[in-house]
Structure formats: C-alpha cells, structure tokens
C-alpha cells in the first residue's frame, strides 16, 4: 500500500472540493449588477421625465416667439392696409369728388378737365409716402363700363379694365384680392372706391394701385428668426407665394402645400410642427389674412429650433451616462471591498482545511469583516492548540500504551516460558505416564496414569503398536488403574487400540478397572468384548505368562 502524504500534524491530506463560481453567482458581480440596475432605473426614469419636458418647453418657447413674429407682421400688414385705405378716402373729399363725378359722368370730357384731375391724382400720389416708399404706384378712375378716364400714369388712360380681377368687386363693392395682371410676373392689388352721386348713383370708381413692395419688405424682414426662420404669404389662388421664401428653388408661381398653409387657407389659425412646402420639418405658426386672401406663415426649421435643446438633452444624457459609469466603477470597488477579504478568508480556510494551521487571515478593516477575520484567526489558533494538546495527549497515551505493551510483552514472554515449561512437564508426564514395560518374554504391560486425552491416547496407541512390532509380544496388558475417568471416547480408543493389537496378533488385556469406572462403562454400553479383562495386573500376568 502506498504511503499517504501527510501534513505538518502528521494527519493525511484530504482532497478538498471547492466549487468554481460562475460570474453570475459571484457576489461581486451581483453587487455590481445591483448597482447597475439601480443606477440605470433611476437615471432612466429621470431622463424619461426630463428629456420630453425639455423638448416640449423648447417647442412652446419657439411657438411663442413665432406667434409674436406672426402677430407683428399681421399688424404691419393691417396697418399698411388701413393706411392705404385711409389715404384713398382722404383723397376723395369734397370738392374733389364733385369734380370727379362731373368728369366721369360726362360722355366725352375735355382733355383740360381730364388733365386737371390727373394732376390732382399725381399730387396725391406724390404726397402719400411712408418712409422711403410711395403707398401707391398709380391712382386712376374708370367708368362703370371699365373705361379708364383719368389716371396719374398717362399710360393707363384709355384702357378698358372690365376683364381685370378688381373690376367686378369694385362694382359690387366687395373685397379686393391680389392678382397677377396679364403680362406681368409681379403681384398687383387695387383698392377701389365708388364715386357716388345722389342723382346718378355710381358714376365711376377711383382705384389706387397698391405698392406691393411693402408687403415683401414686411415679410422678408427676418431679424430674430435665426438662419432658417422666415415669414411669407401664400395666396389662396393656386397656393402661390405672394412674397418670396428663403428656401432654395422656391419660385413664387408654384403651388405651396403644407399642413400650415392648407389649414390657414381654410380659415383656421394655429401653431404646429409639420413639413413645409419643401418637405423640411418645421415649427410653424399660421394665420389667415382675409384682407389679402392669403395665409401668413412664420416658420423655423425644427433642426435649428431644437439645436440648443438637443445639445442640452445630449449633455443631460451624457452626464447621466458618466454618472452611471462612475457608479458602476464605484460599485465594483465597493464590491471588491467585500469580496476580496472573503476570498482571502476562503483561501486561508482552504489551507487550514488542508492541514496548514499556521495560516492566518490578515485583519484589514475595522468592520464586520475585520471581526470575522479576528474570530477566524482565534478559531484557527484554537484549532492549532487543540490539535497540539491532542497530539501531546496522544503521545502520552501512546507512551502509556507502549509501556503497557512492553509489560504485556514481558508477561507474554513469561507466560510463553511457563507454557514451554508446562509443555515440557506435560511431555515428561506423558512420557512418564505411559511407559510400555515388557514383562516376561512375551508380554507388554502399559500402565496408564492420569487423564487420557485423545492426543495422549493416540500417542500411546502409536507407541504400543511400535513396541509390538519391535518386541513381538503375545499379550498386551493395559492397566487403567491410574486413569481417573474413562469416557466414551477413551473407551473407544481402548477398543480401537485393542483391535489394532489383535490385528497384530496380540492379545489385548484390560486391567485395573475400578468399580465406578465399570459402572460408567456399562451405562455407556461400551462393548469391550474384544478385550479380555482381568481383575488386576498380577492376575493378568499370571494368566498369560504361560501362553
């Protein structure tokens, strides 16, 4: 059998089974996971709440801004409109109206009359200025038939304007709309006022050609709207732009459709995020301007509008991620603070389990783990002492046992000696107790003395037979006077011996049977017929001496 390795204590090293932990079982990763989950859930909730709010707040802000811009422009347009209307009304005051009516109702007025009134128109035109621009580009008057009789611009006199868009509304006294005159790519708009006399009714119409440059200048003004923000007007007529748009490739005469434009042209004001006519996502405020038969739009691209808030959101998210990372790292350090001492403890315990009792756990912290380390160390120390004590005791016991063993061995030796003496004695007795004496010439006498155990009996038989062979007696006399007890076994042995003797041609004779033995043998039913029994030895000798 092989020699088992042993440790310092002399005890055999046991195979220690320490299970390998999968990462998800390890405490340190569980702690990290916990921190991770906690951090992410918390931050996630915070982000879910704050980010959309930031978005909506930014949106609201932009809409407010756009709305105020739209309102501003609308007011500008209204003021300009009212101003123009007021200027026209101002022109048509007595006594001018009278003169006008007179000329208009005449079938063929004189050129002087006409020229005089034309001059008034020209003066009015020259005086109606706002800032750097004239309010009107022309003032003229036409008959109910549409024939221009008077005009500040002589080019227009003589024309018939029945087919023009403003004619019908001027006759019906309904609202005017902007229109594109034939042959011109620029928008026109005319404010008209009927010239009325109590006698003749409507004798003619005075028209003021509005300077549409104002409109463009209002709308094109883009301060405060950033890089992509703009305001523009879209006409209900074919959804054409009335004022230019910033966007590349947006001609005035191209239908512009978007949620903002179409809703406003349907008469509804509002603010929404939608895709503009060029499919750019914008935040837009839209208003319906009935006086111009157009929609007013104030838009800014969503990309620009949300640029700041996007940056803020990104920063927010970035900060959250950084915090998450820091938390994870901290979590890992914190976890390590737990798991490392535990691992050290495990390692030391393993060593100790393997038998190395000198190892101790370093006490590194002033907390529960430190206490555990201290306790563990004291336990190890205890173990060591206990073991030492045990060893000592064992040694002592062993020594005792050794002594006892030696004693025993001594006793054994003594016993052994006495046993051999005894055996010797027994052999001597045996020898002494079973002599085979030749008597006469042809007789052997065997006086048996003592207990007859089968072994002795065997020996005797063997000796007897050997002597018979040597001495050739006629008779063998067995004297059992000295045998205290004869049991069945002995009786049988005697019988067997007698039979053997007989076979060898020797007459076996049994003498010395005591009365108690005779009783026992009879009760046993022993058949000793083979043997000749005599009362005693003398008798037997005498009897068979002569044979």
């Amino acid at each position, binding site marked *: 059998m092989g020699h088992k390795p042993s440790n310092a204590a002399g005890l055999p090293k046991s195979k220690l089974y320490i299970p390998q932990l999968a990462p998800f079982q390890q405490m340190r990763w569980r702690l990290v996971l916990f921190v991770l989950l906690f951090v992410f859930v918390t931050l996630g909730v915070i982000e879910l709440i704050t980010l959309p709010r930031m978005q909506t707040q930014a949106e609201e802000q932009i809409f407010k801004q756009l709305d105020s811009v739209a309102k501003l422009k609308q007011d500008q347009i209204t003021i300009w409109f009212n101003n123009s209307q007021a200027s026209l009304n101002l022109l048509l005051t007595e006594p001018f109206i009278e003169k006008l009516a007179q000329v208009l109702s005449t079938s063929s007025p004189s050129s002087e009359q006409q020229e005089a009134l034309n001059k008034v128109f020209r003066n009015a035109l020259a005086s109606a200025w706002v800032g750097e621009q004239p309010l009107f580009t022309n003032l003229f008057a036409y008959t109910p038939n549409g024939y221009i009789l008077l005009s500040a611009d002589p080019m227009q006199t003589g024309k018939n304007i029945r*087919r023009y868009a403003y004619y019908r509304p001027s006759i019906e006294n309904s609202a005017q*709309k902007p229109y594109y005159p*034939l042959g011109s*790519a620029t928008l026109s708009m005319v404010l008209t006022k009927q010239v009325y006399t109590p006698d003749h009714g409507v004798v003619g119409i005075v028209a003021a050609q509005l300077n549409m440059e104002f409109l463009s200048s209002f709308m094109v003004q883009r301060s405060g709207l950033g890089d992509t923000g703009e305001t523009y007007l879209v006409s209900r*007529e*074919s959804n054409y732009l009335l004022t230019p748009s910033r966007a590349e490739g947006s*001609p005035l*005469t191209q*239908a512009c459709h978007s949620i903002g434009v179409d809703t406003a042209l349907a008469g509804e004001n509002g603010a929404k995020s939608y895709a503009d006519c060029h499919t750019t996502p914008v935040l837009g405020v839209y208003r319906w301007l009935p006086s111009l038969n157009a929609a007013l739009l104030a838009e800014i691209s969503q990309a620009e509008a949300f640029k700041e808030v996007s940056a803020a959101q990104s920063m927010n998210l970035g900060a959250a991620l950084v915090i998450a990372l820091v938390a994870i790292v901290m979590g890992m350090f914190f976890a390590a603070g737990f798991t490392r001492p535990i691992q050290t403890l495990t390692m030391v315990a393993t060593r100790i389990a393997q038998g190395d009792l000198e190892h101790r756990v370093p006490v590194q912290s002033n907390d529960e783990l430190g206490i555990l380390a201290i306790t563990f160390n004291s336990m190890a120390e205890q173990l060591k002492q206990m073991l030492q004590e045990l060893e000592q005791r064992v040694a002592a016991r062993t020594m005792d046992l050794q002594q006892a063993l030696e004693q025993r061995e001594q006793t054994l030796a003594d016993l052994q000696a006495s046993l051999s003496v005894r055996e010797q004695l027994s052999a001597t007795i045996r020898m002494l107790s079973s002599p085979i004496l030749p008597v006469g010439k042809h007789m052997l006498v065997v006086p048996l003395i003592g207990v007859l155990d089968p072994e002795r009996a065997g020996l005797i038989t063997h000796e007897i037979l050997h002597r018979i062979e040597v001495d050739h007696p006629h008779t063998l006399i067995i004297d059992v006077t000295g045998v205290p007890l004869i049991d069945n076994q002995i009786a049988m042995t005697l019988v067997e011996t007698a039979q053997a003797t007989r076979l060898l041609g020797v007459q076996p004779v049994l003498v010395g049977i005591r009365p108690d033995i005779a009783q026992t043998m009879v009760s046993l039913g022993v058949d000793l017929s083979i043997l000749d029994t005599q009362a005693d030895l003398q008798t037997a000798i005498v009897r068979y001496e002569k044979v």
Partner: protein
Amino acid sequence: MQSPLDTRLHQARFLRLALVLVFCCLANACGTVTPAAQAPTLTPLALQLAWMPTAEYAPFYVAQQQGYYKAEQIDMTFLPRGEQPATELVAAGKAQFGIASADRILLARDAGQPLVAIATLYQRCPIVYISLAERNITKPQDLIGKIVEVDTSGTTGIVYRAFLKSQEIKPEQVTMRVQPDVTNDALRLVNGEVDVIDGFFNAQPLQVTQMGKQTNLIFVSDYGIDIYPNTIFTTESMIKEHPDQVTQFLRATLKGIDAAIANPEAAAESVIAVDKTQNLGVEQQTMQLALPMFKPTGSVVGMMTDENWRLTYQMLVDQQMLKNPIAVNTAYDLSFLKVIYGT
C-alpha cells in the same frame, strides 16, 4: 460517398422542389393572364391640336403623363397639327375633340359644322401688338402711320379690325402688311422691316428678348377685346350620344390644367418630354406668363363667360363675316363645366 438510399432521397427532394417551382410559375403565369383579361377596356379618344407642342398644351401632356385620362377610363391620343384646321378635322370625324379659337367655332357653325366649345384653355386673350421699346409705341393711337404686320388668316385678323374700330382708327391710317410666314415675324421686327407685329404676349416678345431687344406691348384685352384663343370643342353628336365621355375627358383635362398651374416648371418639362426640340427655358417662361390666363384671379380653370362669347359674336357680325345669324349659346356649352364644378 453517398449510399444509394441517400442519393434516392436527394433526388426525391429535388424533384419535389422542382415540381413546386414549376407549379408556382404556372400559377403566376395564369395569374398574370387573367387580370388583363378582366381589366375594363379604355375608351380611345383623340384630341386634334392646332399648333406644335407648346406650354399652351402642357395641361394635356401633364394629364396624360400623370395618368388622369387613364383614371377616367380614356385612352387619350393627341393628334399633331395638320394641314387643315382642327375644326375641319373634328367635323370630318378624325378626332372627337379639338382646339380652336371662339371665332373659329362660330365661323364653323356658320359653315354648317355642328361644333360646340365646352371649355377654354386661356380665359384671356393674349394677343398683343409688339414693337421695339425705342419706338415708344405704347398706345393704340401710336399705330397710326406705322407698318403693322398682321396675320390675317385667323383670329388675329378679326382682332385687328375690331381693335382699329374700337379705337376709332381708320384702316387706311395704318400700313397693314399681311404676314408672309409664321416663323420669322420676330426677326422682321428686329430688322426694322416692320414697326409692329402681332402675336401672343407670351410667345414673340420672348423671341425678341432672346435677340437682345426690349419690347413694348399693347394688349388688346386692355382695350375691351377678349376672344378665347384656344377653346376645347367637340361635336353635337358626341354631346348627345356620349356625354359621359365628354365629362370624363373634360374632368381629366381640367385636372391637368390645375396640376400645370400647381407646378409650372414640371409642366414645362412635360412639354419637352413630348417634343425634345422645344427649348425648356422658353417653355418655362411661356408657362409662367400663361398662368394668369389659365386661371385669372377669382375664376376657375376652363371657365367661359356668356359676355365674352356675345362680344366675340358681335365682332364677327360687325365685320360681316357670318352668312347667317347664329344663336350664340349654341356654339358653347357650359353644362359640362357646371357638372364638374358641381355648380
């Protein structure tokens, strides 16, 4: 090395797959055959044009290319300008629809051709008297003593006479030259051969500008003369026997006009798609200028007025061009427009 059993298995699998594929192909082929057989047939209709492909006809090309005619179950064909006027060809049955000016319709009716106008492309008359800017010919009276080249063959001739009459200019006060050919009039103006030419304001002036000269225009429509230059007409029998086809055709055409107005640049491109010899830039400009004619402020596309027809008729009567008096309202029918607009 495959065992015989494996080989058999593979063969069986392959055979199954092949069968499935063949079956699929057959089913597919059958599938594609049947729908065609079940598709409703398109009505073949033809429109006789009166001029070469130009922005004026862009609505038709747009409608064709956008599939508006197909959506109305019409297989539309545009017949190019022929030797004979469109009115003759349609009356002869070569096409169901045609383009002609309002005066031509009236004259055709006078000649016994039962033609009826159902809508118009231009709602204003684009005829102008064009002169080089430096000549300062800005008012009708400025024509007196000038050489004016007039295309007397058609509407422009009628317009010229009516114009002079309305402005109280006697014909002899103006040196009128009959237009020898239709292509070089702008050239003759720039050369100085003539002082004034007539034409459409969105056509010849562009040619002159291309030659580097500025123009002055006198619009006849500014002076009360407004003939529809390009009405869409059909025959009385079409209206009687196939009014639904007329409505469908007109609906698709009006849709085409609206689409052309919504995107004039694409409309110009649709003309180039039909005739690559045309110049995209010119067509775009022509289209831009035509917009107020296709849809004047306050009107809807295709619309005609009784007043305009009446005035046109009056012009013909004044110039004694009609043999017999005509009931004007038989020459045009606004009912199809009304049906489409739901008025």
